[in-house]
């Protein structure tokens, strides 16, 4: 408990660090990426519209992209950025296939409800 309290006070009290630094850390970007990924996951689990579900997978791709770019900036090489290009490629391929599947499924049931396909249990 005392540890927690000191943590809270430590937030608001200026704690001196030895030297000035650039303002943002890798962790700032990793937090945004993780939060975006978690929201994509929640959206994928909760939404029942097939199109929105695939939109949420795109959101998770996007979160991965932010983490890759932040890593590329942190370690000062361009491999992370190259891999974002490949992530974009896979996202485009996935979008094309998923939307073709959605159109196919919509023609069969006239509905975008994922629960309409309940019998496809593995």
């Amino acid at each position: 408990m005392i540890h927690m309290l000191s943590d809270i006070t430590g937030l608001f009290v200026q704690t001196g660090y030895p030297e000035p630094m650039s303002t943002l850390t890798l962790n700032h970007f990793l937090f945004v990426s993780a939060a975006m990924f978690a929201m994509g996951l929640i959206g994928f689990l909760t939404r029942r519209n097939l199109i929105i579900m695939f939109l949420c997978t795109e959101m998770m791709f996007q979160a991965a992209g932010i983490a890759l770019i932040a890593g590329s900036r942190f370690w000062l090489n361009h491999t992370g950025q190259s891999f974002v290009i490949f992530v974009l490629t896979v996202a485009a391929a996935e979008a094309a296939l998923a939307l073709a599947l959605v159109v196919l499924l919509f023609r069969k049931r006239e509905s975008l409800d994922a629960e309409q396909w309940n019998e496809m249990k593995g």
Partner: protein
Amino acid sequence: MHYPHAPIRRLPVGLQRARAAELSAGRKRGRSLGEAISPFVLYTAIALGAIGVWMALPRRRVNPQLLGALVGAAALGLVLLGLGLKAAASETSQLPNIYFYVFSLIALGSCLRVITHQRPVYAALYFILAILASAGLYLILSAEFMAFALIIIYAGAILITYLFVIMLATQAPNEEQLESLSDYDATAREPLLATGVGFTLLAVLTSMLFTGTQSLPDTEAVLAGRNGDEVLADLPARVEEALIDAELIEAGQTIARDDHGQALIDPVARTATFETADGFVDVAWPSDLAAKNVESLAFDFLNRHPGTIEIAGIILLMAMLGAVVLSRRQVEIDEEAKAHQSRHLSVEDPA
């Protein structure tokens, strides 16, 4: 032909590695900042965010969406404030980078709207907003090419395809039920369970915030990084142009080349060798000469991942074929039409 005094174009591999290690050690400026945020604040904020997202998820009857969004925003604000105060506390002069906070607020806020909005078209439009904010984050991370490629490919191509399919696959409402929502859009499936799972994952993922952190290298380090200089060794025309612009050499002078036709550029010492009447002269680059983001990215992309490009091409081809096969309508041809067609073909073909 042999140049005894020509600079070594590439360092031996061992030396290169040693130099890279030395450079990166200097560049990281090993400022260990301790944990980025206190665990108590972070986990409180994550719990708060979970409650907010759970409330904001779509449902019938009582719909505390606005309240949920506010709670979620408060949680996010708490985390960002915690991160910002920690960064500010370690600053001597600079404020935290305000653009990061603006862009991440927009990105995460519109992500929340994507997963909570009851109308698919609006969800897709909010996702475009999230993409634009991510492109802003890419710009902060000095990945200019990827930021604009993201806008063009994601917001411009992929999301428009999504919008097309949403409009294709949504029934036009009748006159009397203009404002009706389909049931599957209006209610969430297992909101409590999914939110719990999602935010537990977030809590686990963000444990890395406690492991101590290091600041990002300065922008100058990105511009004048080892990668940038090495890339310039393969771009003699750029070096010549910059030297002419800086009036260090005269127009028309070209960098000397060795037996293999390689331009004599030393990326470590940042000099280029020119042949003059007096012999070979090393000219130092102007200090602002650095490879652009897109140049470095292109070298990394094409030099180091050639196989991956092939695989990406195959994936795209397969996806295209798959999409065509999946969405093509089955055309029923009866026997008579088939016979007619084969007769038609056999007449046209003389063999």
